[in-house]
């Protein structure tokens, strides 16, 4: 049994490494289309990690929303403006030192938060399996307010898109 | 007002009907109408014309063609090439020495058959003509083009028999007119020119 577990562990690390490599690819590759593909790969890798952590629901949603919708739209946009996809875009400009400073600050902040948070790692929490039904109940019960707010925001976004598109059409 | 989707449904019923009838109807009534070609063949249609061939009576030497060159001249795409045979004395023998037809050029119009005054060139039924080369393989020489009258009878019976009758009548007329001259065999070009 332990062999399997170690194999699974190694597999997990490999997937993590892959995610990191692809994430690096997203920011360093010069061809925008390749970047988008790397982003998709990184997101799929994250979904795999979720599966490993027994959050299948989250994994499925991750793939459905991020890979199936977000990345697709990104690629769609890239393909619509084809001259971007063909050129290789320069990856840094005069503002990059500033950005690096900002990034370092953000990383420091994140690290601080992570280190300070008391992670409640108990045996019970590890064994607990969040069912879809539980999620649904949580959404409709405890978190119904944020849920509704999000839906309103989404509807506003939708209407906004339609308005912009409509104006374009009238021209 | 028709129901939305009714047209689509009707179309599907048509294809379904054809699908079912293809199993148990005859080709003429909505069954399968394709022919499994190399094994099955359509009934040969007599009037069908493809490439021209030359008719001989009996043996290939007795070819009807007299190398008059009319077909060569009238052929629209100019795919016929004829050279007359010349005997030792240097006299033309009224026989083709060379008779080439470029099948690659021929457009199967049947003009040669129409203009030939000697009933010697006819359109064949053989359509499975292939060659590996565009220029060489498709040029047919006299030997390849010559086919017996029996073959002609087999391929186009009505036309061949009517032409045989015509030729017989002409021959008898000729015999009656010039009995002492003897049998001319195939060498009877001037008489052939007035068929009717």
């Amino acid at each position, binding site marked *: 049994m332990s062999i399997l577990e170690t194999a699974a562990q190694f597999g997990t690390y490999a997937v993590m490494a892959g995610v990191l490599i692809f994430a690096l690819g997203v920011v360093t590759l010069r061809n925008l289309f390749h970047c988008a593909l790397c982003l998709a790969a990184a997101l799929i890798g994250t979904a795999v990690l979720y599966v490993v952590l027994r959050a299948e629901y989250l994994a499925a949603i991750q793939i459905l929303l991020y890979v199936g919708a977000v990345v697709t739209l990104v690629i769609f946009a890239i393909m*619509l*403006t*084809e*001259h971007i996809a063909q050129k290789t875009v320069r990856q840094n400009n005069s503002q990059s030192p500033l950005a690096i400073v900002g990034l370092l600050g953000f990383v420091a902040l994140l690290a601080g938060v992570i280190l300070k948070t008391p992670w409640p790692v108990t045996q019970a929490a590890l064994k607990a399996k969040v069912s879809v039904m539980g999620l649904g109940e949580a959404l409709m019960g405890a978190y119904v307010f944020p849920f509704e707010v999000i839906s309103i925001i989404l509807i506003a976004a939708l209407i906004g898109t339609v308005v*912009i598109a409509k*104006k*374009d059409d009238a021209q | 007002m*028709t129901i*939305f*989707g*009714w*047209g*689509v449904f*009707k*179309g599907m*019923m*048509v*294809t379904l009907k*054809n699908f079912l009838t293809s199993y148990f109807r005859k080709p003429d009534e909505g069954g399968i*109408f394709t022919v499994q070609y190399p094994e099955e063949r*359509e009934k040969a*249609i*007599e*009037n*069908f*014309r493809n490439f021209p061939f030359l008719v001989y009576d009996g043996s290939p030497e007795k070819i009807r063609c007299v190398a008059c060159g009319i077909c060569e*001249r*009238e*052929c*629209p795409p100019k795919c016929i090439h004829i050279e007359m045979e010349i005997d030792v004395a240097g006299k033309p023998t009224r026989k083709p020495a060379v008779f080439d037809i470029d099948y690659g050029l021929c*457009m*199967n*119009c*049947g*003009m040669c058959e*129409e*203009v030939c*005054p000697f009933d010697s060139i006819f*359109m064949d039924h053989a359509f499975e003509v292939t060659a590996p080369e565009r220029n060489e393989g498709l040029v047919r020489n006299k030997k390849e083009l010559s086919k017996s009258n029996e073959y002609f009878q087999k391929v186009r019976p009505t036309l061949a028999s009517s032409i045989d009758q015509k030729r017989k009548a002409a021959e008898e007329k000729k015999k009656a007119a010039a009995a002492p001259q003897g049998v001319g065999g195939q060498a009877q070009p001037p008489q052939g020119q007035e068929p009717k």
Partner: protein
Amino acid sequence: MEIINALKNTDETQILEINFGPQHPSTHGVFRMTIQLEGEKICGLKPVFGYLHRNHEQIAENLPYAAIMPYTDRLDYVNALANNFGYALTIEKLAGLEVPERAEYIRVIMAELARVVNHITVIGFMLNDLGAFFTPLLYAFRERERILDLFEEITGSRLMNNFFRFGGVKRDLTNANLAAIQKIVSKFPAFLKEFEALLTKNEILCMRCQNIGVLSGDTATNAGITGPVLRASGVNYDIRKVDHYSIYDRFDFKIPLGEKGDVYDRFYVRVLEIRESLKILEQALAKIPAGEIINKKSLPLLKMPRNFKPPVGEAYGRVESPKGELGFYVVSDGTPQPWRYHVRAPSLINLTVLEEMCLGQKIADAIIILGSIDIVLGETDR
């Protein structure tokens, strides 16, 4: 608001130029269009043709009159008989040859059968352009095959018929042939009914065809469009009715007219024209008289085509080919060859309004508009 404006300035979509053909599954041969696309919308279209140019007119000017006949088969190879008809009509006009009664009937029968063949083929191919997976096309070909078998029996060839002669036709129709034609004519309405059930009311087809590629009657007349394309635009113009050439004035038939001049009208006018052709065939089969099939005067010319020298002069003969007005203009200088020979090909002239019909439509529409014009590249490029 500024952001929106900035976005609008940057997202001017690039115009994509596509070379449509000459190697393309649905250009009906080797036709080429240069299409400018904005997304899927067409904002420019230039037809380019000439890929199948075979020098038809020049070849004809170097051939005796009779030898041109097989070449006219190769113009519009879907209905060679209409081309034969037009050319024979022109030369008869030029040489003043009369055509015997029976020959006229045979001509009309053959030409109308060719029209039926052409129209079902066109509809089949148009449906293929629409994306139907060969089914309507193969149903059309099933019926076409029966008629082509008949052509083979009568003329000797399925497509390149070379059947008409100056002053008559090449071969007589036997009673068996007439019976076979009668059988086809009487069976055809059933097939048309099935065909229509498959297509006419189909919502997808209607969606795709209605109000697409609209051609107004005015534009069509100004551009010299003829044939079903013109009649679909609502203009009553059929040379069979206008010229009364051959013996078309003896038959009772109607000219179906379209309402809007879109692709659907062009499709349906053709269906209705098949019905009218069947009516003509019925009448011709009932009335066909016995007699000669070729003018006595032109009999010797069959054996000696080079002896045929029409008097000096010119003639323009035209017929209603299934694609439109097919005209032949021949100038004779008294030699065995025509001095000038010109073909007015309906396919070519109908193609001139292609851009006008396609602008603002989607790329998928351009294909069915092209299909609905019904071009045959043999005729367009000559």
